[in-house]
């Protein structure tokens, strides 16, 4: 088997295991990454929402915020894990497509 094939399989395993990245923080009661709090989180920390931050924080509405489907914020861990895996698959498909396309323009012909 070609090494690249094996690496793709490896990536597939990472995709299936990715919900660990949701479950472990939940299990160990760990919150947001430092500096990545939402507006509610920052209000809890410092007592107010900085005005510029509040304005800019809604600058972009991502189609799958936090690697979940819109409106799934309150769903349980099983649903969120499913959405997480779908996000990983989608993300990797898009990234691969972009790189293969870019690769047509930014690689030299075989020597």
């Amino acid at each position, binding site marked *: 088997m070609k090494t690249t094939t094996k690496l793709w399989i490896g990536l597939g395993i990472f995709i299936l295991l*990715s919900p660990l990245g949701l479950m472990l923080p939940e299990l160990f009661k760990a*919150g947001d990454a430092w500096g990545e709090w939402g507006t509610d989180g920052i209000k809890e920390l410092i007592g107010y929402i*900085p005005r510029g931050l509040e304005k800019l924080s809604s600058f972009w509405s*991502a189609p799958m915020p936090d690697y979940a489907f819109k409106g799934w914020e309150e769903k349980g861990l099983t649903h969120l894990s499913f959405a997480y895996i779908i996000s990983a698959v989608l993300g990797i498909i898009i990234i691969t497509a972009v790189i293969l396309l870019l*690769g047509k323009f930014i690689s030299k012909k075989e020597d």
Partner: protein
Amino acid sequence: MHIPDGYLGPATCGVLYAVMLPIWAFASKIVKKTLRSRQVPMLAIAAAFSFVIMMFNVPIPGGTTGHAVGAVLAAILLGPWAACIAVTVALVVQALLFGDGGITAIGANCFNMAFVEVFVGYYIYKIISGHSSVISARRVIAAGIAGYVAINIAAFSAAVLFGIQPLLHRAASGESLYCPYGLNVAIPAMLGEHMLIFGWVEAIVTAMVIKYLQKQDPNILETAEEVIE
């Protein structure tokens, strides 16, 4: 380390886009001359790996979370300029599709993870590896140390961007406008957690993949050696 929209003021965001534009342009130029078309699948794998490894949030019990970036692995396998492009693509997809990292902060996040981490990691790996054989244990150790140090320097860079906001922007009332924490809080927080936990994750992941490739297909590592910086 994905700075969201709203934490950096317009000046910081603008400056970092302005810094990254020529880096992206130069990277494309270099890669066009050096990347073989048969290496393109590896470029896609490196970007996909970086994307998925960043989904593995590692908890600090009762505290925050963080993750590896995979940028140093990309740099070792493809050279720093191609790695810069791979990690940039991963970060842009994360920001646009998943709201992980702000749109206004794409320049900043790419600077930290696709430029600083990539180049620091690459040169540390090169310096420690020296002229050792591509299947030597020294390379595995070099990869680990490069991963650990590079993600910490990237975290430091992110902390500086966070930390200068209170100096740059403040309302008349004294309230912060963007990131409310100064350098005295941001640097110990970001650097501390990466030195303690996330740096080790990056080190182990990077070293293990290199170790695997040494056994599985040293040719890939040989090809990597021929990449022009």
